[in-house]
């Protein structure tokens, strides 16, 4: 680890449900500021891997290190506080809160002022400023005071990321950020992701190969719970195994 600056490392993660192995010996390293894509056919264990890394699932064996510290036994919320945050494939938002309320909530949870019941919410001016800045950054400023459930779907996907950014992540795990978003909009959404602060390491799951090759600096191919290849987009594009196992299958689906 000494040579390169790896923010997140997994060492031989294993997990099975009964006889089904959903993660076999997964060892990965994310350098600071990376934009990695995690791809693989349906059922390859991509979301499972994110659930393992963020702590929603407990691995049967293996370790997870965040900036060299072992976080394998920590609860999801504790990992978030140390800078490891995820988003969800299916929106996990607060339908009856407005975006400004939702993101301010996430900011106050991070800076430790969320429990202050004696202070009115609008007195947390710095938190509100920060929340609004995040919303501006993601182009949500115009709808900041509308109820979340009334937002357009694409805006809800952006709010999903805004909530994660409010935790000031060092590592951001994006589980299909563009799931359900029309193709022309999803490129715009990935522009936003590409423009995230350079010190945040991003690992995203995405099915659209054009997007993956355009935005990923490196690609991890997951098949049947194990890492098949981890390489640059060009190498992955030309790898015959990937072609066979993944791209071929995707072509059948298409």
């Amino acid at each position, binding site marked *: 680890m000494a040579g390169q600056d790896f923010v997140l490392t997994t060492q031989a993660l294993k997990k099975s449900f009964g006889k089904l192995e959903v993660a076999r010996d997964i060892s990965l390293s994310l350098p600071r500021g990376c934009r990695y894509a995690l791809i693989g056919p349906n059922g390859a264990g991509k979301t499972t891997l994110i659930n393992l890394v963020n702590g929603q699932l407990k691995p049967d064996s293996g370790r997870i290190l965040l900036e060299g510290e072992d976080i394998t036994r920590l609860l999801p919320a504790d990992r*978030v506080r140390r800078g490891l945050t995820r988003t969800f494939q299916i929106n996990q938002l607060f339908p009856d809160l407005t975006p400004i309320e939702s993101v301010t909530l*996430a900011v106050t949870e991070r800076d430790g002022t969320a429990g202050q019941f004696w202070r*009115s*919410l*609008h007195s947390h001016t710095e938190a509100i400023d920060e929340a609004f800045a995040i919303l501006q950054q993601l182009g949500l400023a*115009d709808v900041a005071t509308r109820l979340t459930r009334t937002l357009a779907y694409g805006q809800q996907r952006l709010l999903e990321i805004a909530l994660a950014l409010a935790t000031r992540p060092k590592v951001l795990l994006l589980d299909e950020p563009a799931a359900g978003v029309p193709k022309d909009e999803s490129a715009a959404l990935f522009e936003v992701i590409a423009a995230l602060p350079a010190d945040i390491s991003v690992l995203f799951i995405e099915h659209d190969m054009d997007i993956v090759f355009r935005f990923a600096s490196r690609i991890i191919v997951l098949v049947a719970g194990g890492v098949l290849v981890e390489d640059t987009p060009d190498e992955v594009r030309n790898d015959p195994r990937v072609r066979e196992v993944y791209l071929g299958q995707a072509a059948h689906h298409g």
Partner: protein
Amino acid sequence: MNAANPTLGDPHVWLKRQSRWSPFEILFWLAALLPFFLFPTYLTLASQVAIVALFAISVDLVLGYAGIVTLGHAMFFGLGAYAAGIISVHGWGEPLTGLIFAGAFAGLIGFIVSFLIVRVQHLALIMVTLGLGFLTLELANSMSWLTGGADGLRGISTWPIFNQFRFDLWGYTAYSYSLIALFVGFLISRRIVHSSFGLSLRGIRENVTRMPAIGSDYKFHLRKIYTISAAMAGVAGALLTQTTNTVALDSLSFQRSADVVVMLILGGTGRLYGAILGAIIFLIARDQLSGVNPQYWYFWIGVLLMIVVLFMPKGILGFLARIAGRRD
């Protein structure tokens, strides 16, 4: 900040507006003084309404704001009622310290219980609250040396407030005292609801699975509001003891736990005025109808509950707010 959109304005201004006092609220609290002048014969009832409204607000904090479905909150009401009664029987009838003692005692038990509450969800949560409620009732019943058992506690006497205002037969002092306590409880709750802590509670209610993903120790929040709510319910119970000089097992009953939830639903959960309005409607209706035909009181409550659940999922206040087109 965002000059491009004139309808939006500054988020600070918007957030501040959410917690601003509306003229309706000021009117409401002024109207709460009317019974002194218009219905002086009903001050005892008005005092009961204020007490139950405070209890309803305490339940709304956990049920309406934090989303913990509880069918056993009468245990804290009753614990407060008995705490105030027992110190009075043992020679300390000073009301304000009695209130604080009762609130602290109920809050302490609430704090302990809260560790159990956050461990369970869904049916198990309902059953644990229900079970703890019955448990407390049975405990009070069997500890008759302390509580007077089924006969209730005898010999309670409450001293005049500040050694000045004696609890009179007409209920002037009782209503003033209960109303002030309700108002203070309301102010505290209002502040909680409009704080960042209140926002976290709404977050828990809206989507508990997201909370850990934004780094929230939401169980800590839940324990905190549960403790606050228990203390407030205890104060309400103590008020009832002090204004009536009696306390009996019905203060701990399941009936009381269920009634308060019914009031919340009628008024609308997750809105403090819903709790107060529900208490007013429930108690006045019961007072008026029970004289006519007591055994059918619950028939109408049942029908009303079913209608509200089917057609007014946000309670009567929420229903009115929707008709009036306001954000709720």
